[in-house]
C-alpha cells in the first residue's frame, strides 16, 4: 500500500526541520459546518483518501432534517465523523480528537463532543458578530477563554479560500463555497493523505464547469500548502497513521443503502427472479430506492409509488406475478404497510420489507438513528401473523442480509422484514468485495404440474406452499386474504380449519430456525461472566467495548444476532451459559423483552435513545459496572 505511505515519508523528510510526524494508532476527526458548506461531501472525500491510504475506517454522517436551514443557525449544522486507524475500526468513534468548525454554530453544537485536549480547527473568518449572534453566543468564544481546554488552530479559512479561489475568476460567493476544500486540504496535510483521488473527483464532478473544478482544486492545494509552510503551534505536527492490517482483496467504500441495494440485486439473481422494488420517499430510507433506480437493467424494476401502501401492494402483486417483490421504508411508513404485509402472510407470498429505522414515535427525528422498531417488526400486526425478521449490523452486512432475506422469503413463501437504521444506511465503510460466483444460488422452482394442484399444497419439510404464477396453463387459481381451506385452498370459515391454518403458519415460520446458522460468539468464550448481546448497528460499539474489557482480563463475550425472528435454535442454551446477559439497544429494551419472553431469561437491558449511536465508552462503562456488581 504504498504510494501514500511513500508520500508520508517524503513529507516528513522535506520538513525535517520541523517536528517529525507523530505516529497514531487511530484518530477520530469530525467536520462540522453549515449545511450549505458541503460537509458531507468533504467527509466522503476524506473517507476515500483514507481508505486509499490503507487505513481501516468507519464514518458517521450526522446531518439536519432541514434541507436548507437558515444559514448560520445551530439547527442547520451538518457534521461528518470519521474514525480511521492502523488497526481494525468498527465504529465511527466516540469523542472526536479533531473538530473542524467552519462557523460559530458548528462550534456551539459540536464542542461538547470534543475530547478534552482535542484539536479545534476554526475558521475565524466565519466568526463575525452576526454569525456569533445567530449561533447564540453572547461573547466571542475565541476570546473569552471558554476554549482553553482544547488545542486550537485559528485560521481565517474564508479569507484564504477567497485568495486561492478568486484568482480563478469566481465571484466572492462562489469562491467562498470552496472553503470546505481548503479545510480538507489542511486535514490531508495533517494526516499525509494523497490529494490525487480528490482532484480527479473534482475534475469529474465539475466537468461541465471547469472553472469551479479549478477553484476547488486551488483551495484544496492552498489548504495543504498552508499545513506544509505555515507556522503551526508547537504541539501540533503532522501525523502518521500506518496502514491497517487488512485482508487482501478488492475494496470499495460502501454505505448501508448502497450495499442493501446491491444485495437485493444479487439475491434476486441467485433466486433467478425479477426484482420489483416499490417504495415511497421517506428519510432515511430513500437512498435505497435511489441506489436501485440507478441500476437500471433488465430484471430490475423500481417504482416510486403514490404512498407507502401502494408501494408494498405493488411489491406483493409482483410476487404474485412471479417476481420477488421488495418494499422499503422507515418505521412510520412500515406502519402504513402493515395491513398489506398481513395479506402476504395470509396469501403466503414472498416479500421483503426493508425498515431503515429512525427515532420516533411518529415523525420523531427522521435523520437520527434508533432501533425502536423491533417490536413492530416481530409483533406489529393484527392477528396471529408471524413472519421472519433479520437485522443488519453494518453497512457492508446489508449486502449479506438482503440476500438472506430473499432466500428465506422465497424458500418459505413468507414476508421477511429486514431491520437497518439511519446510522447503517448513511455510514460508510470499506467493503471487501465478494465474488458472486462463490455465493450459493437458491433458484426458485415454480409449480407447473396441474396434477392434483391446489394453491396451498405444502412442501412437507418447509411447510411452504407451492408458488404457481399467472401465465402457467392449468394452474388458474384464486387466492386472497380470506382464510383458506387447508386441503383445497378454497375459502373456508370452518373453525377447525382456521386453527389448523393458524398453526401451520406459525410452524412454518418457527421452522425457519432449522434453516439458519446456529448463533455464534463474535468475540470471547462460549460461557463466562457476562455476555453482551446486541443486534443491528450497535455491533461496532459493542465489539469495541468487549475487546477493551477483554484486554483488561475480563471473561466477557460478544454475541450479535442477525436472525431476530425466529431466533437461532441454540441461542437460549448459549445465553444460559453466562452468569449475566447485558443487552445494549438504541430503544427502551425491545430485544431484551423478546429474549425474556422467549427464554424466561433475566437479561439486563442497556438503553440509549438520544438519536446518536452508542459510544464504545458507554458500553464499556456499563460492562465494567456489571462486573463490579458481580464481584
Amino acid at each position, binding site marked *: 500500500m504504498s504510494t501514500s505511505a511513500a508520500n508520508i515519508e517524503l513529507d516528513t523528510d522535506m520538513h525535517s526541520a520541523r517536528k517529525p510526524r507523530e505516529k497514531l494508532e487511530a484518530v477520530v476527526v469530525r467536520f462540522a459546518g453549515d449545511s450549505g458548506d458541503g460537509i458531507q461531501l468533504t467527509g466522503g472525500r476524506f473517507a476515500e483518501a483514507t481508505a486509499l491510504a490503507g487505513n481501516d475506517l468507519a464514518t458517521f454522517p450526522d446531518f439536519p432534517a432541514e434541507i436548507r436551514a437558515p444559514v448560520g443557525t445551530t439547527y442547520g449544522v451538518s457534521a461528518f465523523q470519521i474514525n480511521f486507524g492502523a488497526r481494525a475500526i468498527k465504529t465511527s468513534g466516540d469523542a472526536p480528537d479533531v473538530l473542524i468548525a467552519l462557523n460559530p454554530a458548528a462550534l456551539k453544537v459540536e464542542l461538547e463532543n470534543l475530547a478534552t485536549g482535542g484539536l479545534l480547527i476554526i475558521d475565524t473568518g466565519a466568526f463575525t458578530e452576526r454569525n456569533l449572534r445567530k449561533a447564540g453566543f453572547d461573547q466571542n468564544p475565541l476570546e473569552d477563554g471558554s476554549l482553553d481546554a482544547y488545542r486550537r488552530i485559528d485560521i481565517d479559512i474564508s479569507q484564504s479560500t477567497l485568495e486561492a479561489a478568486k484568482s480563478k475568476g469566481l465571484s466572492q460567493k462562489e469562491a467562498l463555497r470552496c472553503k470546505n476544500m481548503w479545510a480538507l486540504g489542511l486535514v490531508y496535510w495533517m494526516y499525509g493523505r494523497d490529494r490525487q483521488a480528490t482532484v480527479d473527483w473534482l475534475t469529474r464532478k465539475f466537468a461541465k464547469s471547469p472553472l469551479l473544478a479549478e477553484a476547488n482544486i486551488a483551495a484544496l492545494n492552498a489548504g495543504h500548502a498552508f499545513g506544509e509552510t505555515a507556522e503551526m503551534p508547537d504541539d501540533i505536527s503532522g501525523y502518521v497513521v500506518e496502514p491497517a492490517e487488512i485482508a487482501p482483496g478488492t475494496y470499495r467504500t460502501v454505505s448501508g443503502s448502497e450495499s442493501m441495494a446491491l444485495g437485493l440485486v444479487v439475491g434476486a439473481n441467485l433466486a433467478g427472479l425479477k426484482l420489483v422494488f416499490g417504495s415511497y420517499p421517506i428519510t432515511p430510507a430513500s437512498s435505497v430506492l435511489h441506489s436501485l433506480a440507478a441500476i437500471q437493467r433488465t430484471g430490475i424494476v423500481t417504482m416510486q409509488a403514490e404512498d407507502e401502501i401502494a408501494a408494498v*401492494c405493488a411489491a406483493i402483486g409482483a410476487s404474485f406475478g412471479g417476481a420477488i417483490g421488495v418494499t422499503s421504508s422507515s418505521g412510520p411508513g412500515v406502519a402504513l404497510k402493515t395491513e398489506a404485509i398481513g395479506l402476504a402472510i395470509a396469501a403466503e407470498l414472498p416479500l421483503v420489507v426493508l425498515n431503515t429505522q429512525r427515532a420516533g414515535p411518529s415523525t420523531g427525528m427522521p435523520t437520527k438513528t434508533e432501533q425502536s422498531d423491533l417490536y413492530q417488526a416481530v409483533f406489529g400486526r393484527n392477528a396471529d401473523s408471524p413472519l421472519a425478521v433479520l437485522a443488519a449490523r453494518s453497512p457492508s452486512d446489508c449486502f449479506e442480509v438482503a440476500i438472506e432475506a430473499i432466500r428465506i422469503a422465497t424458500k418459505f413463501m413468507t414476508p421477511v422484514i429486514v431491520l437497518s437504521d439511519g446510522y447503517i444506511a448513511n455510514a460508510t465503510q470499506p467493503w471487501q468485495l465478494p465474488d458472486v460466483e462463490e455465493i450459493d444460488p437458491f433458484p426458485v422452482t415454480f409449480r407447473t404440474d396441474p396434477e392434483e394442484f391446489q394453491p396451498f399444497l405444502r412442501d412437507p419439510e418447509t411447510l411452504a406452499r407451492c408458488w404457481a404464477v399467472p401465465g402457467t396453463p392449468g394452474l388458474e387459481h384464486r387466492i386472497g386474504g380470506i382464510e383458506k381451506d387447508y386441503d383445497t385452498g378454497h375459502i373456508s370459515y370452518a373453525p377447525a380449519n382456521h386453527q389448523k391454518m393458524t398453526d401451520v403458519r406459525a410452524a412454518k415460520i418457527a421452522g425457519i430456525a432449522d434453516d439458519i446458522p446456529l448463533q455464534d460468539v463474535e468475540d470471547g468464550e462460549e460461557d463466562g461472566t457476562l455476555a453482551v448481546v446486541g443486534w443491528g448497528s450497535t455491533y461496532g460499539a459493542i465489539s469495541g467495548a468487549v475487546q477493551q474489557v477483554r484486554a483488561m482480563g475480563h471473561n466477557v463475550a460478544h454475541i450479535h444476532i442477525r436472525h431476530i425472528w425466529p431466533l437461532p435454535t441454540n441461542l437460549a442454551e448459549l445465553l444460559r451459559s453466562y452468569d449475566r446477559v447485558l443487552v445494549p439497544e438504541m430503544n427502551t429494551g425491545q430485544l431484551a423483552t423478546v429474549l425474556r419472553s422467549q427464554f424466561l431469561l433475566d437479561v439486563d437491558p442497556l438503553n440509549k435513545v438520544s438519536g446518536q449511536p452508542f459510544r464504545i465508552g458507554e458500553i464499556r462503562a456499563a460492562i465494567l459496572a456489571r462486573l463490579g456488581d458481580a464481584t
Partner: protein
Amino acid sequence: MNTITPPEKLRPDDYASDQEVRWCPGCGDYAILKATQKTLADLGAKTEQTVFVSGIGCSSRFPYYMNAYGFHTIHGRAPSFATGIKLANPDLDVWVVTGDGDGLSIGGNHLMHTLRRNVDVQILLFNNEIYGLTKGQYSPTSQTGTRSPSTPGGSIESPVSAAAFAFGAGGRFVARSVDTMQKHLVEVLKRAHAHRGASFVEIFQNCIVYNDEVFAGFTAKSVASEAQIHVAHGEPLVFGKEKNRGLRLKPGTVELEAVTIGEDGISEDDLLVHDETNLGLAHMLAAMQPPNFPVALGVLYCAPEPSFEARMAAQVDASEPAMTASDLNALLRRGYTWTVEG
C-alpha cells in the same frame, strides 16, 4: 390429407370457476359476471394469461367466480396490486374489479395514480352508490340526502362523479354502462380490453338489498330510451325512442342543450357529433343528469398514450440478457475500488 380442426369456440361458461356464486339473489353483479365471461369468450382470452384483481366489498368477490388467475386483496388497493403484477409480467391481461367504496373512498388515491400512470389494466368500477358488504352505509357516490344506518338524517355530502374523477386523474379511457344492458356492457368491455393503458369503466349496478332501484330513473325500461344516450364515436349525439332528440351546444355558450329535432327549426345537422378524443366534450357528457339531460353511456373518452409498462420498457434495453455472475461482480465493483495485496 391434413384436416385443420378449427379451435373450439369458447363459451362464457368456460370462464366460470367451480365456485358457487354467493351474491344476494337479484344482485346486479351476476349480470356483470355474465357479461365479463361473455366478453372473454368472444375475445377467445386465454384463462392462464388472464388475472382478476379485487379489493374488498361485494364486487371484490368477483375473482373467485372467474376461471382465471385471481387475487382478492385488501380494501381499496387492488390497482396497486395490479400494477405490481404488470411490472412482474407485462404480458398478462389484468382486470381490476372494484366498487364505489373500494375504488373511490378508501382506494381513491390508488385509482387516481393508476389512471395517471396509465398502467395497462382494465378497471371495472361497480357503482351502486352504497356500501353493501358492511350493510348499507352511504358511499362517496351516494346522492346528498341518502338515508342510511350511518346517515339517519340523510347524507350531507356531495357525491363524487366517478367519470369526472377519472378525467381529473388523467385517465385516457373512460366508459360507462349498466349491469342489465348485456349487449352494451359486452361491447364496452371489449373496447376497454382493446385499449392499451388504463381503461376505466363505470358500471351502474343495482344493489337489490340496500339501494334498490337507485338508478331506475334512467335504467327502467319505461324511461330508458328517453333518459339514456348511447354515445358512439363519429355518430351524432341522438337519443329518444323516436331518435328525434339530441344534444347541441347551446348557442353562444359552451354548455350542452338537449333538443328535439323538428322543433324550433332544429335539424340533425345542428346536433353534436361524438368525438371520443375530445376531453372537453367528454366532461360535459359525463356531467349530464336527468331530468334535463339523458345519462351518457358508452365510451365517453378514448385518447391513447403509451402505457406505464411501455414507457418503462423503453428505458431499458429489452434485448439485454439477464445478468451473469460476472456482470454482478462488475456491478459491485463499479466506481472507485482499490486492491490490498496479500
